[in-house]
């Protein structure tokens, strides 16, 4: 089937709000090439479970597409139209399974050496869209905070090597009560600028005490879900004929209830719905966050195993999808990767932790958190703080912080935040 043949009834399987949205813009969608449309439908089908920022961006994209004339549409999508597709892809049920179609399209692009052409087309489209529908500036300048090194007393590595050139390095930060000060500052921002899923706290271990105004995700609280997922994967892997492609499809179909979400104690989340009372305009805000957490575990490589990977990936996805105004990420020690000889001996017992390795992981994770924050609108006004937990080292980046400088000034974290504001 080709896009030109689309009919409203074909979207009967979509969630209600997604169905309404796609029906509204059906005329525009019919004009799009098949190499592009399923990628868009992959976003549309999840509309009911998207964060407010994602919804708004998707709506604007659809409005823009419907505003294009036939000639303009041809011009915008000429790169995609030149992509050669197979008959099997054209026969695929891409309306009801757009994500699986995109997986197969990906494979097709690699094997037919059309990947570069697709990248060029996709980049050109993104640039046009950004020019036609400029991203919305944040209500207030963003603030990102990353806390690394939990459990490390001493280290030899030079920290923050990648971030220091972009801001000011402080060597005499007063660490007392530092995490509580930071979480306090977060809560004040959340209350002063209330918005659903706009102020986040991600913890790679057990979450510290924090205000309910913050959207919180933690590796520790997801332990039951991680265990449930691991059991499901083990059962699937042992089934005859199971391969990575099939398993991945099965994982993509998992829903929060399959992993024990929505059972009270296992949720591991709380969030601020005090502004509007509902995150997704008709669906419960919990459902949005629960889906987000399931995707962290089922789509993120290594997120089940290493808490440092979880924290970094969760931050990346929160920034990309929810575009928070405030984000605090705290890394915790991950389990130690045993060398082969220890595995052969089979020492058993609970996994040991690797605080020093985790410090190295978190250091690059902090850099990636900053990079991902800077990809969002309003980057020139954004601020970022990274702190070595319970120690005196930190880097502050922002419009008011001189780049590539060092300071031996004695200051606490509250003071640093006030300088950055």
């Amino acid at each position: 089937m080709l896009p030109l043949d689309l009919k409203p009834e074909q979207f009967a399987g979509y969630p209600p709000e997604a169905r309404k949205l796609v029906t509204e813009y059906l005329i525009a969608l019919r004009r799009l090439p098949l190499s592009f449309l399923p990628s868009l439908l992959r976003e549309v089908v999840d509309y009911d479970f998207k964060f407010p920022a994602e919804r708004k961006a998707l709506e604007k994209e659809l409005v823009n597409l419907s505003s294009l004339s036939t000639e303009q549409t041809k011009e915008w999508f000429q790169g995609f139209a030149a992509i050669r597709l197979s008959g099997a892809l054209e026969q695929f049920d891409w309306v009801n399974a757009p994500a699986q179609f995109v997986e197969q399209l990906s494979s097709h692009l690699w094997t037919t050496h059309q990947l570069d052409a697709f990248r060029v087309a996709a980049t050109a489209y993104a640039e046009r869209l950004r020019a036609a529908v400029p991203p919305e500036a944040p209500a207030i300048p963003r603030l990102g905070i990353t806390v690394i090194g939990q459990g490390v007393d001493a280290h030899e590595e030079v920290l923050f090597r990648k971030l220091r050139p972009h801001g000011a390095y402080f060597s005499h930060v007063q660490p007392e009560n530092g995490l509580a000060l930071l979480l306090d500052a977060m809560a004040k921002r959340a209350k002063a600028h209330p918005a659903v899923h706009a102020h986040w706290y991600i913890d790679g271990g057990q979450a510290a005490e924090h205000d309910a105004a913050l959207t919180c995700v933690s590796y520790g609280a997801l332990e039951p879900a991680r265990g449930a997922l691991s059991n499901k994967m083990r059962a699937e892997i042992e089934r005859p004929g199971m391969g990575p492609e099939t398993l991945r499809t099965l994982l993509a179909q998992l829903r929060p209830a399959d992993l024990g979400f929505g059972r009270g104690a296992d949720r591991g989340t709380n969030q601020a719905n005090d502004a509007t009372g509902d995150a997704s305009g008709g669906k419960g805000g919990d459902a949005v966050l629960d889906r987000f957490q399931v995707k962290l575990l089922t789509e993120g490589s290594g997120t089940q195993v290493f808490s440092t990977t979880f924290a970094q990936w969760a931050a990346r996805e929160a920034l990309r999808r929810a575009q928070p105004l405030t984000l605090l990420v705290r890394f915790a020690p991950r389990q130690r990767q045993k060398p082969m000889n220890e595995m052969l001996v089979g020492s058993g017992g609970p996994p040991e932790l690797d605080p020093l390795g985790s410090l190295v992981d978190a250091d690059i994770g902090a850099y990636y958190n900053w990079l991902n924050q800077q990809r969002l609108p309003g980057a020139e006004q954004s601020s970022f703080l990274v702190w070595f937990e319970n120690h005196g080292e930190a880097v502050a980046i922002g419009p008011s912080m001189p780049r590539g400088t060092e300071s031996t000034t004695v200051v606490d974290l509250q003071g640093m935040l006030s300088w950055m504001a």
Partner: protein
Amino acid sequence: MTYHLPSRPKTPRISASLSGLKPNAASSNPLELSRQLAFTRRDFLRTAAGVALGSTLLHSPVALAGAALRKRKVVVITFGGGARDQETFAPEGQENIPHLIRELIPQSSFFTQVVNRGILGHYVATASLATGVYETVNNFASLPPEHPTAFEYFRKDLKRPSSDAWVVAPSNGFNRIGESNHRSYGAGLGARVILPKHLLTAATSGGASDYEHLLRDNYETPFYTPELGGNEFELHQLGMMLKLSVDDFKAHARTLSSPDELSVYIARRLMRQVAPSLLWITMHDIDIAHAGAYSLYIDGIRRTDRLCAELWKTIQSEPEYADKTTLFILPDFGRDSDDDSGGNGFQHHRTGDALSRTTWMMALGAGVREGVVYDRAVESVDLVPTLGSMLGFSASLAQGKPIAELL
């Protein structure tokens, strides 16, 4: 037990939202980016190892002496999941590769721009390196390459026995790498394939509680281990071919920290006992990057650096190899750039960007000019025709061309 989740080497990771794509800051032209990468590597090397400009040394006496060598042997080391410049050749990364920088590069011809235009999955990319054709076989299935491998050309053209071409590979997924299903080559003409982790599986037969972790087939699909279906090396052959008892093998494995160390141990044993003329070793420790732990990725780079130097020392010290062996070292491809918003930095090789497609290669030993850097672009499929020119076989179905600077 826990599992890593799969990465998708066949997947270009079309950005979750196409509208979220952003162009690279420097240039969006892949060819231009590759060229810039190459020149950056040259600058790194000039300061680190004091190497010379390639064109000035063409037709040197060293090259001519090499060309006259007889009974030449070739050892190829590839590593799956390449390492990026910033963790290796860039100033801040050189501490991770002291052996490559200080010992091997000064002795090598170094190619700064090796482009892989194929699929960036480790099995299919290694198959492409071995055939000289961008293979399109399913990266996850236990399938042979579709085009003849270097081993088949070598054995058929030169009438060499099966004991003269070997592959040491990290995982079950590589068990078909030694022999294609091409009708003019294929069955009976390929390399012997030895999978050290598979041997260890057979030797220990589930005796350790943590052993499931070790059996992860690779880091791209760590939960999935293909069934073996080729002519893999069996446990009883340890004694026959390598003069190694199962007990000694197990005891030695218990002193090693990683699967790549096990592979190198087996490769050295093979060199001592069998001395194949064409030996291909594929390493994989670096690819733990897919699990997202940067410190483990760096550990993998440092270990690979050390193991490459150890193999070079073995080549120089083994009578069957010394002075008549050319060693090639190359990653199968690179990893994603920090600048590409479609990826997640070092973790994967999904975007197909210039950094993940552009890597390097060094050649050292017999017939190779020392301390020379070449910036011109070569392709990863050029390796097999180059081996053909060196060893005297014709890679007639390969897409690549012999690298003139090595002949």
